[in-house]
């Protein structure tokens, strides 16, 4: 299709990859944190809760800058990870990290709400039947939380598709490596007359996100139907 140039297609592919990874890699810790916030009492719970929300409150540039300081090759964590061959700086994985962190509060909130809606009586029933806490979680809580996980995942995906401020600050914009759709769009908007080009990219971005959205609605409806017992 000649709608987009090769660079732009690259940005589309990269954005998809970044958003998918940001969402998928965010899910396990997201579920864990959501569960902890929903069901456990522990010291520092409010601190954890605050931390999770931080990317929402901070201007993205600040988040990006903080990421640069910690996960950059010279940052404390970044340096350690580099030893074992994991690099975030100027790499698409860094874009995924930034997008994932920006999307994390949305993911956690949705999952947490769903976990809170699971009737503890069902979890108790699982426990009396011999399931340990972990098993109860895996066989009762988690399946009943699926709609929330799906909702959280789609929010996170959409957010990751649109994230730009933290990403560009952290990993900048290297075509083919870290140039995602939103940074390409941003670039077009900086120059007079770039609106039309920006619009094409916006359309692509919206189309992808809408497809994901519709998919998630279909899945979620199927889950709801099964539980309602049709």
């Amino acid at each position: 299709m000649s709608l987009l140039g090769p660079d732009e297609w690259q940005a589309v592919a990269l954005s998809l990859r970044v958003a998918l990874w940001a969402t998928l890699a965010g899910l396990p810790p997201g579920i864990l944190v959501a569960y902890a916030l929903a069901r456990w009492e522990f010291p520092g719970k409010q601190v954890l809760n605050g931390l999770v929300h931080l990317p929402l409150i901070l201007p993205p540039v600040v988040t990006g800058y903080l990421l640069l300081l910690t996960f950059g090759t010279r940052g404390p964590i970044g340096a350690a990870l580099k030893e074992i061959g994991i690099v975030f700086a100027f790499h698409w994985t860094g874009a995924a990290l930034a997008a994932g962190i920006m999307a994390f509060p949305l993911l956690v909130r949705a999952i947490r709400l769903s976990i809170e809606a699971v009737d503890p009586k069902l979890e108790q029933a699982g426990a009396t039947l011999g399931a340990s806490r972990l098993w109860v979680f895996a066989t009762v809580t988690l399946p009943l939380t699926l709609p929330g996980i799906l909702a959280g995942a789609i929010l996170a995906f959409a957010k990751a598709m649109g994230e730009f401020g933290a990403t560009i600050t952290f990993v900048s914009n290297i075509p083919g490596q870290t140039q995602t759709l939103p940074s390409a769009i941003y670039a077009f908007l900086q120059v007079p007359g770039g609106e039309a080009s920006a619009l094409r990219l916006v359309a692509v971005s919206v189309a992808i996100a809408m497809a994901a959205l519709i998919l998630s609605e279909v899945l979620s409806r199927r889950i709801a139907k099964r539980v309602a017992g049709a």
Partner: protein
Amino acid sequence: SGACAEQVTVFAAASVKTAMDEITARFTEETGETARVSFAGSSALARQIQAGAPADLFISANPGWMDTLEADGLIDDATRTDLLGNSLVLIAHDPEAGAVEITSDLPLADMLGEDHLAMALVEAVPAGIYGKAALEALGLWNAGAPKVAQADNVRAALALVATGEAPLGIVYATDAHAEPSVTVLGSFPEDSHAPITYPVARIRDSDSAVADAFLAYLQGPVARAAFERQGFTVLTE
């Protein structure tokens, strides 16, 4: 339609904030009139002026946007002046790095090795555009292009070098000037890129009585001193 008569509203590129804060404070002290400054990216400000923003003056970091407004008939052409100038420098993270002369012989690729050259967006942001033009003029672009990490603005590019993420970067002299954790290796020759100017103009619809006074004040000695302290070249008499 402009703001109310007792004050002047200036839309200014965010990079002149420090100097402008000082200038507006002095202006208020001296005249009793207030000047409000809205700092944002030049593109955002220009679009807002297109949409009817209550701005009296516009200081753009990008002459292109001023051209656009002029073409749209939104500014008072007669008042357009190139207020400030700036220059491009090559900076390094390494505090020990020695000064180099920036010519076509500069071994940029070797200096970078596996690492990146931090710049602002080379197609979109003025500092990036000027930087790319300069590298092209010096015949260094092809060697440097694959290594360029483009930030969304000069400050972000500076931050990449300041944190050491990128060993080298190309930024405005004004930015390098105030950042202690980078070392200026050298300035790009002025003829390697189009002159870096910050035009100012009065908005056509502005009805502020203070606007002209403030425009004049911007070109006065107090403003000149403030701008120069930040490393700008003042282009007006």
